[in-house]
C-alpha cells in the first residue's frame, strides 16, 4: 500500500511539473488535448461506465458547452468563459429531455435515442444563423483582457484542464463510494434485481446523466476556450461522441482511472496515426479506432482495467 502512495505522489509531481522542463509546443498541445479527452471520457463514464447506459451521443453535451461559450462571445460580447454556464444549463435540459423517455426502456434504446438526438441537434444547428449555421462560431481573435482566457501557449490550458479533471475525479470517487454509485452499478448489473431492492432506476439514471452531461458540457466549453472555434461537426459530430466511449472502454469503463489510462494511450496514438497517414482527413485514424473498439468488445470487455486485474490475480497466484 505504501509503495502505491509513493507512486501516486511521483506521478502527480510529474504531471504537474513536466511543462517546466519540456518546452515543445506540440507536446504541450497534445498534453492539453489528452487531459481534455480524459475529462470528457470520465464524464461519459459516470453514466456509460458505472451505470451501463451506453450513450453514443454525448457530443450533444460537449457541443452545447462549446456553443454556449462562443455564442456568449459572438452574440453578447461576453468573455467566452461566462458562456460556459449557459452551455451547461442547455446540456442539463437536453439530458432531461433525452433521458426521461428512454430510461424506462432497455439499454440499447437509450443508445439509439442518443444518436438520433445528437444528429437532430447537429442538423438544427447547421440551420440556425445566430449560432453560426454550418460555418460555426469563432472566439475573440485577440484577447481583450485576461477574462477572455486566451493564451498563446497551451500550458495555461493544460493546468486549467488538470484542475477540472481533478475536480471530476473527486466527484467520481465520492460517487463511487456513495449510494448513487452503488445504485448505478446495481442498475448495470440488472434492473430487475435492482428494482426489487428499492433502487429508483429512472431517477438514478437521470441524476447520473445530468452529472455526466454537466461535466461533458464543461469539457466542451474548455475546448472552445482553447481552440476558439466550433462548428456543428467539431461540436456535435458522431466522432466526438465515439471518442469518449472508446477512451473509457479502452481504459476500463466503470472504473475511476480507466478513462485516464484510455486517454493517455489513445490521444498520443491518434496524433501519431494522423502524422503517419497524413492528417485526420484520410480516415485511417478512425479505422484504428473502430478496430480497437471491436477488439475490446470481443476480447476484453472490461478494458485495460480488466487486464491489469487478471494479471495481478495471476501474479498473486504465482506468488502463493
Amino acid at each position, binding site marked *: 500500500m505504501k509503495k502505491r502512495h509513493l507512486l501516486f505522489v511521483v506521478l502527480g509531481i510529474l504531471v504537474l511539473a513536466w511543462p517546466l522542463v519540456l518546452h515543445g509546443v506540440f507536446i504541450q498541445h497534445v498534453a492539453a488535448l489528452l487531459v481534455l479527452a480524459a475529462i470528457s471520457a470520465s464524464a461519459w463514464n459516470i453514466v456509460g461506465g458505472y451505470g451501463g447506459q451506453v450513450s453514443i451521443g454525448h457530443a450533444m453535451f460537449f457541443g452545447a458547452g462549446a456553443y454556449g461559450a462562443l455564442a456568449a462571445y459572438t452574440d453578447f460580447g461576453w468573455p467566452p468563459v461566462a458562456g460556459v454556464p449557459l452551455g451547461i444549463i442547455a446540456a442539463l435540459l437536453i439530458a432531461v429531455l433525452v433521458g426521461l423517455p428512454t430510461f424506462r426502456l432497455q439499454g440499447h434504446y437509450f443508445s439509439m435515442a442518443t444518436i438520433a438526438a445528437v444528429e437532430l441537434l447537429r442538423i438544427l444547428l447547421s440551420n440556425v444563423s445566430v449560432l453560426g449555421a454550418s460555418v460555426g462560431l469563432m472566439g475573440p481573435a485577440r484577447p481583450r483582457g485576461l477574462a477572455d482566457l486566451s493564451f498563446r501557449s497551451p500550458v495555461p490550458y493544460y493546468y486549467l484542464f488538470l484542475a477540472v479533471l481533478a475536480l471530476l475525479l473527486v466527484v467520481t470517487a465520492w460517487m463511487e*463510494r*456513495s*449510494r448513487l454509485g*452503488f*445504485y448505478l*452499478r*446495481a442498475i*448495470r*448489473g*440488472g434492473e*430487475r*434485481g*435492482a*428494482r*426489487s*431492492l*428499492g*433502487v*429508483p*432506476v429512472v431517477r438514478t439514471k437521470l441524476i447520473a446523466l445530468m452529472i455526466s452531461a454537466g461535466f461533458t458540457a464543461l469539457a466542451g466549453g474548455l475546448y472552445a476556450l482553447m481552440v476558439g472555434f466550433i462548428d456543428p461537426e467539431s461540436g456535435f459530430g458522431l466522432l466526438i461522441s465515439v471518442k469518449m466511449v472508446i477512451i473509457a472502454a479502452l481504459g476500463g469503463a466503470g472504473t475511476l482511472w480507466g478513462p485516464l489510462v484510455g486517454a493517455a494511450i489513445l490521444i498520443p496514438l491518434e496524433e501519431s496515426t494522423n502524422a503517419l497517414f497524413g492528417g485526420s482527413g484520410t480516415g485511417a485514424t478512425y479505422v484504428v479506432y473502430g478496430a480497437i473498439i471491436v477488439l475490446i468488445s470481443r476480447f476484453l470487455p472490461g478494458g485495460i482495467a480488466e487486464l491489469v486485474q487478471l494479471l495481478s490475480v495471476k501474479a498473486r497466484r504465482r506468488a502463493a
Partner: protein
Amino acid sequence: MLLEAQGIVKLFGGFRAVDGADLSLNRGEIVGLIGPNGAGKSTFFNCLAGDLRPNAGRIVFDGHDLTLATPEAHARRGLARTWQVPVVFAEMAVRDNVMVGAFLRHPQARAARRKADEVLEFTGLAAQADAPAGSLGTLGRKRLEIARALATEPSLLLLDEALAGLNATETQVAIDLVRGIHARGVTLIIVEHVMSVILSLAQRAVVFNQGHVIAAGAPQAVIEDEAVIEAYLGKRFRRPVP
C-alpha cells in the same frame, strides 16, 4: 392482516398463468406455497412483488394498496423477495450486493456497510464478502439473494425455491436460517417442492394448481388432501419430469 391478495389474474397472451388467486397473511406467519410445476407460483410471486402487473385483482400490503405499484415501491413498503433463478449483480462484490439492499434504509455508506456486514454474518456469507458475486455457485447466489433482501429490512419476505437443490445437511442449515429470519420478526411466504421443508417450517400450506388456490390449511392435512394428490399425480403422469 399483513398481506391480502384477492382475485389475482395474470395473462400471458391468452394463457392464464395466474387465474383468480387469493391469499391472505397475518403478521408473523410462515406460509408454504406449493403446487406442481407450472402452477403459477412464481408468476403469483411476481405479481405480489410488483414485478408483474396483475390483469385483475387487488393487493393490499400493510394497509396500502400496492396492486399496480412498482417493485421499488414494494421494497420501500417492506416487501422483499428472492428469485427462483437468482439475479445477483455478478460484477459486484458480495458485500456490495448486500449494501445495495442496505442503502434502502441507510442512505449513508458507512451505515449501509455496517448493516450489510451484520446481514452477511447472519447469513453465513461473511467469508466471501469481498469475492465477486459472479464467482458464487447457485447455492451461494441464492443465499446472497436472501442476504440482499434481508438488508432492505423487510416485514415480509418471499422466498422462491430458495432451498431447492440442497443436500440434507445444507437443507438443515437453510431451514435454521429461515427460522432465524422468522425469529427476527419477518413474515415469510416460501415456495418449495420438498415437502419435508414445508412440513418443518410452515404453519400453514397453500396449494396452487392451474393458477389458483385449490387447498389451504395445516401442512400435514393439506398434503393428504385428495384434490392435492390428484393435482400432483395428474401432472406427474401427464408430464414426466425431464
